């Protein structure tokens, strides 16, 4: 299986490659259109700020490539947010693959910290790409913006309010948390993605 990991100057992409290696898969870090288009599966990671990251994608022409991919694509963290229509972070138009808005956490008191950093539990809906036995398990998050719960939400987490921990629309899959950093639970979720048949 050929897995392309999109490498576009968006944080710790190495950790995704290492996580795949621990599962016995050699992922290819690449920003070349042809290599991404011909992979069996594509992982679209990312941490950092939405606006400058979208600019990187545009510079590489990947903003045209990613929405048209036909194989399963997994967006992680900022990757998931960029799959949506628009991010409130510096008023950024995104790839518009999943018609959802990305908004900022606005807690009522200082006791609730932003960014949302650490391990929080997920509630997984029935019959989605994430194994339902992982409901209530903990995964690692680090983000200040989130996707509201909507039609394409397949798992939710509660912080300030319930938000989308994972999404799916057609061949586009996504997690707000970092499966590559979420211990054995994260490994199972990566495996769930790797098992998806076209």
């Amino acid at each position, binding site marked *: 299986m050929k897995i392309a990991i999109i490498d576009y100057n968006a*944080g*710790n992409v190495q950790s995704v490659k*290492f*996580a795949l290696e621990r599962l016995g898969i050699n992922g290819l870090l690449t920003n070349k259109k042809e290599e991404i288009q011909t992979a069996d599966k594509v992982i679209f990671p990312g941490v950092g700020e939405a606006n400058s990251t979208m600019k990187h994608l545009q510079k590489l022409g990947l903003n045209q490539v990613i929405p048209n991919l036909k194989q399963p694509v997994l967006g992680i963290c900022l990757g998931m947010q960029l799959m949506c229509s628009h991010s409130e972070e510096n008023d950024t138009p995104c790839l518009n693959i999943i018609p959802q808005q990305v908004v900022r956490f606005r807690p009522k008191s200082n006791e609730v910290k932003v960014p949302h950093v*650490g391990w929080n539990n997920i509630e997984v809906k029935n019959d989605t790409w994430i194994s339902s036995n992982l409901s209530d398990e903990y995964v690692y998050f*680090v*983000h200040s913006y989130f996707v509201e719960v909507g039609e394409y939400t397949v798992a939710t987490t509660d912080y300030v309010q319930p938000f989308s921990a994972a999404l799916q629309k057609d061949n586009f899959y996504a997690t707000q948390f970092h499966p590559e*950093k979420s211990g054995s639970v994260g490994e199972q979720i990566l495996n769930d993605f790797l098992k998806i048949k076209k």
Partner: protein
Amino acid sequence: MLTKRIIPCLDIKNGRTVKGINFEGLRDAGDPVELGKLYSQQGADELVFLDITATNDKRKPLSDLVKKIAANINIPFTVGGGIRSIEDADVLLQAGADKISVNSAAVRNPELINELANNFGSQFVVVAIDAKLYEGKWKVHLNGGRIPTEFNLLDWAKECEERGAGEILFTSMNHDGTKQGFENVMLEKLSEVLSIPIIASGGAGSMEHFYEVFAKGKADAGLAASIFHFKEIEILDLKRYLKAKGIPIRI
């Protein structure tokens, strides 16, 4: 529910863990990767690796070590020690570090925090602050606590947040090594003033101390070194204890 984090800290010198560490079942207790892996299996939520190598040229060996850690450990980890520039940080990011921590270099050149946050995102930037209370004032110290500054702890922590720090790692030098508990009064104040997460360090000696740092100190994470290294407290026991006391904890 977001859980409180338990973070073992490993001091690294010339690529090896320091402090007498005696673990059964570890082939090589001096190997930071093996020890980190063991902690992650025992339920550590994150790891901090602090490079205390004295030599100036530690960039290459540290990045080699970070690669090994990133390849073997499936929880987040922070690397600190002598990071002074964007270049230093970038080498560690490329090697697979999730976060870096800066301390003295940020006090000497506060603009470094902005540069790091702008280049890599706030989630990558932990600012470590060592402070000591004397004559009624909490003063920030440099170089592992050897050099006092005129910086006031609360003002500096607030400035770090404004400049783009993602988390603050606060060590009370009055408490560090005493095993008498964390500085919960100051931690609670920091928590009121800051809207970013706070990692508490210095003073952990018992499981109750961790309960207090979360319940009273309002810390988001508790960090300790020797009590874990010497197995005075097992991470899993600690987490069970905290959970039973009503603290949100991942087990």
